[in-house]
């Protein structure tokens, strides 16, 4: 009986260990997606939904030098909303239109644009719900993360997506802060 109790305690302890290890593995899961290659100027239609307001416009992205690219987002009435510089390791919004000059928007947008154009992995962030989808002629792939950063569907660990024409026709990013839709 004493041995059984010891075995039980050992099993519970082992299970906890496995459970903890499993969560840890999930948290380090990265979906690898080829960043959009910017050789010439890329022009996307841009839709930004934030706090119930929809803003439509364009995203222009251009190669700056070997290390960085620059982008400008402007509204359909021609007003510049954001200027952003994207390097391999970080993205920096250098200008934000006053109504959108919000630390939360800027930090999220920096992370998303870096993901699309530079870094090929989604950064884990427990405070952020995340959905992203890419559509092109040959594929339609989407994945969704909940607040615990669990990968919920579609592409699996270490899947790699390569865009045949460098940039997909549509990218949709939904977070708990905003929704961005980019279409060519």
């Amino acid at each position, binding site marked *: 009986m004493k041995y059984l109790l010891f075995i039980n305690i050992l099993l519970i302890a082992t299970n906890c260990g496995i459970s903890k290890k499993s969560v840890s593995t999930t948290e380090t899961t990265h979906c690898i997606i080829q960043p959009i290659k910017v050789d010439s*100027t890329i022009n996307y*239609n841009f839709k930004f939904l934030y706090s119930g307001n929809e803003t*439509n416009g364009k995203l*222009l992205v*251009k190669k700056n030098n070997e290390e960085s690219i*620059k*982008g*400008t987002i*402007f509204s*359909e*009435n*021609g*007003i*510049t909303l954001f*200027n952003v510089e994207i390097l391999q390791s970080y993205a920096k919004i*250098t*200008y934000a*239109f*006053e*109504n959108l000059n919000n630390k939360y928007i800027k930090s999220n947008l920096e992370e998303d644009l870096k993901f699309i154009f530079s870094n090929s992995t989604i950064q884990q962030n427990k405070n952020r719900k995340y959905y992203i989808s890419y559509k092109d002629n040959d594929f339609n792939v989407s994945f969704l993360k909940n607040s615990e950063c669990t990968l919920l569907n579609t592409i699996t660990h270490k899947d790699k997506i390569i865009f045949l024409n460098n940039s997909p026709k549509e990218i949709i990013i939904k977070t708990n802060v905003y929704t961005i839709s980019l279409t060519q």
Partner: protein
Amino acid sequence: MKISSINIIFLICIFHLNGYAQHQGFVVVKDNKKLELQLKEKNTNHKITQVAFKQEKTFTFLNETLKSEGKLTYSSPNKLRIEYSEPNKYLLLFNNDNVYIKDEKNLNQFPISNNKTFKSIQLMIIDCLSGNLFKNSNYSTKSYESSTQYLIDITPKQENIKKIYDNIIVKFNKNDLTIANIQLIERSGDMTIMSFMKSNLNPSINNEIFTIH
């Protein structure tokens, strides 16, 4: 510290040169009242203006300029149709209380009251086209002239426009007071220039062009 007369002359020269460099080829309008009356009269007589335009939007951050062109139709007091034909077809329509935006794929319609920025931009463009810029509480203005054009340098006073534009420069042709160009200088440093071709004043148009079915 004693300010010598040489210093004062030097400062006056600097201010004068600054003003000169800002609007090269233009001097301050001597008879502002006359210009106001002329624009007011034109406004009364010309209820409809239709004009082709070329637009250049300069992105200083990208060192890139986007060129487009199209046709603008304005019907007094508040109908405005801006129809881009190159490089892409794109229609921006302000009809009383509604805004319509139509590109090659989508049509978007919303009440203008839902978007104060759109409302202010619509009013500002209409004021620029009509020349209703003086004694207007939304702007402060400075008027200049050359041998062929009037230039009005507009500083917006409305908070939502001040957030967007540092200033707006409108040029009118002196001979018929038709609009020559509008420069919209944004706080971001970017600039949009709409250059207008020969205006067609009071053309017969179908009012249907201000609606989308």
